[in-house]
């Protein structure tokens, strides 16, 4: 019995950090409407900075001073980030805000490794709190007791701050109605900055307080952000009370899940989240959000099917690509096959993201499922390649059916957070279920059939499947289904009012996109001859987003161009620099801030504005206008 009590109390202690980070995220979202993906990065920075400070400052005062000082330092970094980056994107579509803060996360990760090294750092124990209470024979660390008390104390302090100070009242007013506060003559810029600073302070404090309990390392950011997303999805984004209740709930589920179902504790949290989403899609304490504008709204150029010239050009490029084995080395062919596979991956995300307005931050889940599907069939069932290629993606299809059903109940940032959480679940299963997946060691020896075992033949196979996928998805874009999908993105109100069942359409699109991603994953497994948990990892999900963004979110063919350029660049980059995340993160931030239309989008607007008028086709004389609505 006492064992369970102790387990419960330990869960409460873990809830503290989760609550601090989640409440910070919620406060920032309430006022700025930005879901700060970089919140996990600030949490991690808090831990690293606190580690360095407490190593240098001695004594009790030095320790606690170091913890608080670390949170202040990171909050100041947050202020810089807000002023230099976020102020430029407050009016951008939410996809871009998510991506920019994600880019930031990538950069911070590499910088942390650069400064503090890649190894786990063990911090100082809290002076005076090293001992443990005896609870009927079970030990409770004294430090955990402190954390248990801290959660409710911070909750109370935040309540006082928001109800008893002028600043807090202003923040609450801004959460209700931003424009009203501007009308009151309040300097909105500084209100935003101060709110962001508070949110970052809380996250960093949460991180700093972890050092006596846990080792500090550079994967803390993604681990916590996924948990935090689960917390805010359950508790309701924007609600501090919700963050508290859900943080306790999630921590307790984790604490007891480990006891009851050690292998699948993560599934337990997922089941609870799913149940909450069905009953209350906006979380336990959240309020329904007014539907966010789904269209990126950078341009209103309608999409047109390819002209005959463009089709001929496509075939021409394809023929040229097919000629690569005549000139290229084996290395070039392997790279070429990889690029082709990523074209399928990017185009599948484009279908749900650009056509359907569903920006998935976990598209790699389906890529990974496809890859593992092939590996299981090939290694465990011993099926021939052709059967594996056809049946393997079914695993991705089933995954998309289940995860997609839940995801399409939500939209905008909630959708993004949920898809990310699902992808993390897939990754965790691949990582933890060692008996079946081989865990971190992956599954090796997934070799293609002899018929396509040479680099040239495998390249041709990949190219053919890619060309077919691109054509099929393009036909879908212009099919009645594709238009109905785009209709749900453009105006949910109008599409429901003309008989379109938005959720069913979006679910179907999700499944189609997931299946094509799984097909890409299946090919990838054969290309590499092995599968690993990272085939479903966050980095890969972000890759797919960047490929679409780089090519141009609002174009039909952008994903193809984006995938080719991005993949070629990143293969080149990885072989030239250790700091690929830093560079990649920087590229994402720059893209969002300076180049939001992407390659094809920019090219199109150059044509439209007459700078490349010799390429202009048709009689459309559109101008760039803000999206209507």
């Amino acid at each position: 019995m006492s064992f369970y009590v102790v387990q419960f109390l330990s869960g409460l202690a873990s809830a503290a950090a989760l609550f601090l980070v989640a409440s910070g995220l919620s406060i920032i979202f309430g006022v700025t409407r930005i879901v700060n993906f970089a919140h996990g990065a600030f949490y991690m920075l808090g831990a690293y900075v606190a580690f360095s400070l407490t190593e240098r400052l001695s004594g009790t005062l030095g320790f606690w001073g170091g913890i608080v000082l670390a949170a202040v330092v990171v909050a100041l970094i947050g202020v810089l980030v807000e002023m230099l980056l976020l102020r430029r994107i407050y009016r951008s579509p939410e996809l871009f805000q998510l991506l920019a803060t994600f880019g930031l996360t990538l950069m911070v990760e590499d910088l942390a490794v650069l400064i503090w090294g890649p190894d786990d750092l063990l911090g100082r124990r809290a002076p005076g709190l090293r001992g443990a209470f005896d609870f009927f024979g079970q030990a409770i660390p004294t430090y955990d007791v402190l954390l248990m008390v801290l959660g409710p104390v911070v909750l109370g302090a935040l309540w006082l701050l928001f109800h008893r100070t002028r600043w807090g009242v202003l923040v609450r007013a801004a959460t209700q109605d931003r424009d009203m506060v501007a009308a009151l003559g309040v300097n909105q810029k500084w209100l935003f900055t101060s709110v962001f600073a508070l949110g970052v302070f809380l996250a960093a404090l949460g991180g700093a307080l972890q050092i006596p309990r846990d080792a500090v390392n550079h994967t803390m950011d993604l681990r916590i952000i996924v948990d935090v997303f689960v917390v805010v999805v359950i508790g309701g984004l924007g609600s501090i009370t919700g963050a508290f209740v859900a943080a306790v709930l999630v921590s307790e589920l984790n604490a007891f899940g480990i006891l009851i179902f050690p292998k699948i504790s993560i599934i337990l949290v997922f089941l609870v989240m799913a149940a909450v989403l069905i009953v209350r899609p906006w979380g336990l304490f959240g309020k329904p959000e007014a539907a966010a504008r789904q269209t990126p709204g950078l341009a209103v150029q309608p999409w047109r099917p390819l002209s005959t010239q463009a089709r001929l050009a496509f075939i021409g490029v394809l023929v040229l690509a097919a000629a690569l084995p005549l000139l290229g080395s084996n290395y070039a062919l392997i790279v070429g096959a990889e690029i082709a596979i990523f074209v399928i991956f990017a185009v599948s995300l484009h279908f749900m993201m650009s056509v359907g307005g569903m920006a998935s931050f976990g598209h790699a889940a389906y890529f990974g499922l496809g890859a593992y599907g092939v590996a299981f069939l090939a290694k465990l069932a011993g099926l021939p390649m052709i059967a594996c290629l056809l049946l393997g993606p079914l695993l991705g299809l089933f995954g998309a059916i289940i995860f997609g059903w839940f995801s399409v109940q939500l939209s905008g940032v909630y959708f993004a957070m949920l898809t990310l959480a699902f992808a993390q679940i897939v990754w965790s299963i691949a990582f933890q279920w060692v008996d079946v997946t081989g865990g971190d060691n992956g599954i090796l020896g997934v070799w293609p059939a002899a018929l396509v075992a040479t680099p040239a033949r495998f390249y041709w196979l990949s190219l053919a499947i890619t060309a077919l996928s691109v054509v099929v998805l393009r036909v879908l874009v212009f099919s009645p289904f594709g238009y109905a999908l785009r209709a749900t993105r453009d105006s949910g109100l109008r599409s429901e009012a003309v008989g379109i069942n938005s959720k069913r359409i979006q679910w179907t699109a999700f499944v189609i996109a997931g299946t094509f991603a799984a097909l890409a994953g299946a090919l990838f497994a054969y290309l590499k001859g092995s599968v690993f948990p990272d085939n479903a990892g966050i980095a890969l999900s972000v890759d797919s987003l960047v490929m679409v963004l780089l090519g141009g979110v609002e174009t039909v063919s952008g994903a193809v161009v984006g995938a080719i350029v991005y993949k070629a660049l990143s293969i080149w980059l990885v072989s030239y620099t250790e700091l690929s995340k830093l560079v990649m993160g920087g590229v994402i931030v720059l893209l969002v801030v300076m180049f939001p239309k992407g390659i094809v989008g920019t090219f199109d607007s150059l044509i439209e504005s007459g700078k490349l008028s010799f390429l202009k086709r048709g009689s459309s004389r559109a101008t760039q206008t803000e999206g209507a609505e």
Partner: protein
Amino acid sequence: MSTAAALLAVDGLTKSYGGVHAVRGVSFTLAAGEILALIGPNGAGKSTCFDMLNGQRKPDRGRVQLLGKDITGQPPRRVWRLGVGRTFQITATFPTMTVRENVQVALVSHANQIFNLWRSTPDFQRDAADRLLALVGVEGYAERPCGELAYGDLKRLELAIALANEPKLLLMDEPTAGMAPRDRIELMRLTARIAREQSIGVLFTEHDMDVVFEHADRILVLNRGTLIAEGSPEQVRRDPQVRAIYLGEGLVYDARHQEGAGA
């Protein structure tokens, strides 16, 4: 007029938002081919009524019947399939499609082809789409991005979309709000003509009393959620309660009332 013959029969419709009683016990009927105006000051509950009629919101109490069939609480897409077209106070169209494609999407849905993965939508029932565009007078913009249209033309486009499923009933919430006075009169004349020709029942709201009196067969007056008067234009015009509200609001009958985007 017996209830059995009514195209639309509304009985005791009620809705409140928290403490605000937006609509209280509204009952009326509408016959096929009849043009019925629902008027009342801003915040009277007109849009809320429309939302409950087409299923956008669920009423707290009351019933909505279409041709004798209870449709209360059915989602908008079902109500649409039963032959109810709707235009919105703030236009809702598909801004990234061309004007023609906007209508084609509705035609695709009407033909139950939404899950068709193969055909080309830009070629789908193009003639039917163009006929609808011509009917409302925006055929010249068929290839233009819908996001570029002037507001008045968007309102016309909405009408074309609403007509795409050959509706029996049109619900038009402030169809002319935000249009120039000349365009308002033209659009309502057009609507009235189409409604009479195709025997479509129309329920509309409108702030321009000239327009209301010219076209409505009957008028319902809503104030603070309750129907306070009902009758022919002549009867309503003389009703002392109606006069009081409209004078109190500073709206004499022919005053031009500029609608903002709110309410």
